[in-house]
C-alpha cells in the first residue's frame, strides 16, 4: 500500500494528460493498479518497478483517451516552446556573450532561499508549466528519479526528456529569481 500511496498522485496527473476528466483519470489509475497486480508475475526487472507501473498506466490512459476520441497533440502536453531558446536572447550580444547579467541571488541567506515563501513560488511555477514539463521536473527533481526511469515511464525519447527537464528548470529558476529580486529590493 505504501507504493500505491507514493505513486498514485503522479499517476493521476499523468493519466489526466490523456483523458478528459479527473474521474476518468482515477478510473485509469485503478485499472492500471489492477493490471499491475495481475501482471506482476510478468515483471522481469528489466526496468525499475515504478517505471514498469507507469508504462502500464500510460497505456491504460491512452487507450481510455482513444475510447473517448480524445487525442492530445504532443505539443499541447510538452509545450510549444521547445524549439525556442531557453534564455531571453536580448541578454546576449551579437557574439552570444552576456550583455546584461541576471540578478545575482547567490549570496542570499539560506533561510530566504529555502524558506516557505520560495518553495511556494517553486510549486506554483511548476503548476503553470505545460503538463509534460511539470511531470518531468517533478519526477526528476522532486521525486529523484533518473533520466532513464523518467524517459521510460513517460514514453519520451532521451532528447525530449532532457529538453523538457531543462526548459522546466529554466522557468522555475526564472520564477525564483523574480521572487528573490522583488523581496530583496
Amino acid at each position: 500500500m505504501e507504493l500505491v500511496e507514493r505513486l498514485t498522485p503522479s499517476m493521476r496527473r499523468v493519466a489526466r494528460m490523456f483523458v478528459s476528466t479527473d474521474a476518468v483519470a482515477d478510473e485509469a489509475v485503478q485499472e492500471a493498479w489492477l493490471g499491475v497486480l495481475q501482471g506482476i508475475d510478468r515483471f522481469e526487472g528489466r526496468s525499475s518497478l515504478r517505471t514498469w507501473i507507469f508504462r502500464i498506466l500510460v497505456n491504460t490512459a491512452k487507450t481510455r483517451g482513444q475510447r473517448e476520441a480524445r487525442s492530445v497533440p504532443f505539443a499541447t502536453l510538452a509545450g510549444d516552446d521547445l524549439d525556442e531558446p531557453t534564455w531571453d536572447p536580448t541578454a546576449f550580444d551579437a557574439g552570444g556573450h552576456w550583455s546584461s547579467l541576471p540578478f545575482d541571488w547567490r549570496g542570499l541567506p539560506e533561510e530566504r532561499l529555502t524558506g516557505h515563501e520560495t518553495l511556494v513560488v517553486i510549486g506554483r511555477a511548476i503548476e503553470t508549466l505545460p503538463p509534460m514539463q511539470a511531470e518531468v521536473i517533478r519526477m526528476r527533481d522532486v521525486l529523484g528519479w533518473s533520466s532513464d526511469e523518467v524517459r521510460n515511464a513517460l514514453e519520451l525519447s532521451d532528447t525530449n526528456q532532457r529538453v523538457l527537464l531543462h526548459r522546466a528548470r529554466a522557468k522555475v529558476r526564472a520564477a525564483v529569481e523574480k521572487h528573490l529580486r522583488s523581496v530583496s529590493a
Partner: protein
Amino acid sequence: MSNDIVCRDLLELISRYLDDALPGDVHAGVEAHLAVCDGCSMVLEEFRTTIRMTGMLTEDQVTPAQRDTLLAAFRDWTG
C-alpha cells in the same frame, strides 16, 4: 578557438552537463568556459540551488477518499 562555447549556447547545456550526459569534448568545453565566465558560473550555481530547493517540495498526498476507492477496487479483484 572557433569552436569555443559561447554563453548563449552554454545555457542550453546546463541540465545535460549536470546529468553528465554530454559528449566528452563538449563537457570539457563547458568546463573551460565556466572557468573563465562569471555570468555562466553564477547561472550554473543557481540551477544547482533551484534543483536543491525543488527537491524540498513534497509530493501531493493521496486523499482518504481516493485511498478508499483504490482499496475497494483491490478487494473486488482479490474477491
